[in-house]
């Protein structure tokens, strides 16, 4: 954690939605009666590069706060969950019943302030195998057409991207990976597929991900990853944690088949 610089003016607001602490850099508010939500500001925008920078800074603050809450949780914290620039803290039942909410907000506000300007996510580096054989790359051709590139350029961009887990969400083992080049930021498919195969390597909305298991999904499928992203028998059960750096390593169809078979051992 880094020390926040300068002083900030914080306003306590009480409204029909509950309590909130608002400052220029972030807000801390109560959602319902059992969650405190921190929202780090995304800045005023401006150029695409400036927006990307603001988003990354906010996400690094989230990662730093999450890391702190996991290693040294305050007494009243039962659990925590993060979005790109947001972090939700669940209150313990006895604190929902008896605590003073403004104290919880202040404590979280204090920690959030410490995380402003955090430089790099503390995560490990995860290497994932990926096969881009046409039989496994359902949407690669369509993505190439949509971006005006060759399929091979799309694959190359994914392999060279310095990806990091901005958010862990949607389903156990699913990590939203930021760090794709701007030209690969294409939207989701117009309508989701009823079932995306397990292991699908996919992109949408400027992020990449691997589907840990088969599920309905609307992302564009570029290839398939044989690695097990979620294994409840392992400790930790998820391969990719918030803030981890992720790199894809290309493998042949035969190596993919060999590794895929190991999933079921």
């Amino acid at each position: 954690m880094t020390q926040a610089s300068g002083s900030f003016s914080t306003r306590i607001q009480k409204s029909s939605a509950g309590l909130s602490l608002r400052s220029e850099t972030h807000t801390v508010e109560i959602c319902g009666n059992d969650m405190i939500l921190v929202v780090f500001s995304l800045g005023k925008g401006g150029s695409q590069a400036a927006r990307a920078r603001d988003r990354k800074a906010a996400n690094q603050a989230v990662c730093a706060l999450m890391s702190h809450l996991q290693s040294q949780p305050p007494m009243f914290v039962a659990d925590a969950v993060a979005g790109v620039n947001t972090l939700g803290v669940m209150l313990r039942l006895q604190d929902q019943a008896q605590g003073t909410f403004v104290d919880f907000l202040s404590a979280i506000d204090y920690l959030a302030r410490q995380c402003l300007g955090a430089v790099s996510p503390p995560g490990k580096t995860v290497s994932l195998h990926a096969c881009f054989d046409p039989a496994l790359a359902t949407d690669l051709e369509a993505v190439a057409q949509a971006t005006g590139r060759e399929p091979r350029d799309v694959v190359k961009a994914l392999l060279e991207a310095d990806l990091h887990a901005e958010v862990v969400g949607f389903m156990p083992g699913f990590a939203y990976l930021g760090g794709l080049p701007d030209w690969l930021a294409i939207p989701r498919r117009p309508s989701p597929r009823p079932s995306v195969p397990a292991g699908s390597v996919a992109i949408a909305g400027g992020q990449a991900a691997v589907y840990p298991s088969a599920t309905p999904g609307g992302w564009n499928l570029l290839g398939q990853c044989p690695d097990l992203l979620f294994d409840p028998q392992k400790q930790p059960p998820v391969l990719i944690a918030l803030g981890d750096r992720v790199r894809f390593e290309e493998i042949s169809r035969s190596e993919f088949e060999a590794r895929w078979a190991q999933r079921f051992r």
Partner: protein
Amino acid sequence: MGPAIQIVRPGLLTSVQDLGRPGHLGMALSRGGAMDTAAARLANRLVGNSDRAALLEITGMGPTITVTNRTGLAWTGADFALEVRSAQGTQQWQASHRPVVVPAGAQLRWTPPSKGFRSWVAFAGGLDLPEVLGSHSGHLAAALGPGRLTGGETLALGALADQQTSRLDAALRRSSAQDDLAESAAKDSGADAVMVPRWHIPMQPFEGNESVEALRLPAFEGRHFQSLTQAQQIRLWQSEYAVSPQSSRQGLRLEGTPINDPAPPGIASEPVRFGTVQLPPEGMPYILLVEHQTTGGYPRVLEVCSTMAATLAQAGPGTRLRFIPTDLASSQQRLREQSLQWDAIAAAIAAKLGL
């Protein structure tokens, strides 16, 4: 083989639950577990189990099961009736919220309650299943732990099943001496008897779908409430909704007048909670339940108070409901009342069963 239950027919939706997996939101896993954890704990305590023993969550039309041994059981939540078929014939008992002992080989069937939707059925000794991430529960949305029961399964009971059932038999016979047993059960107190006490341990009643009035859900304004037009805000508070049959343990889908003109704004995905009311583009509110996704990208227009889990658990298809404004002080008052009620329940069980 040790004591076990066998699932003959699964009913509408029967799954294995316990208190779920709190503490795993960071890996995108919501708590799951029993929709109403207080009711599940009560069912377990009534048969002498630990609070976190595995039990069945039954829904709407209950399952049909058989028991291999003389077995103590208890069910809480909605007031399902239990039909017991044994050598003694077929008897029907309106006997939720109390321990019941049935003979070896009995076939049990739970019939739909007049009010409410879900019940938690605990067996003395608990269901003996492997733990996954610290819980026996089936997280159906995340496909973790045992899946929904389909019929044909045999579920072993814990090592102490017979011993705990004997203790329940003994406790119920003691209270029988005080004329506390239902009459038809008291005639015979042997191994073939169905033991059903007259007493029961009531829980604060949830508001069910039989009432003339719609269910009232105390809720807070959500973060994106203010992005609705004033007319939409008023509609949200004043509308009466009906629970859609498309609902699941993940969330309650509602039917009613949509709030989609103008369409709700899109937002970036952010952390959500059990009780968050999302407003997807089609404009029908969606209440997140115990197997919710951990982050959500729809505007959160309301947040149902955490004290309403028991009520939400009983909102079956067609249940009419409306949201009413609440505040933090009232939520704390309700939580304290629930805590006091639980203390009273725990004391009452200990007194009845001589624990």
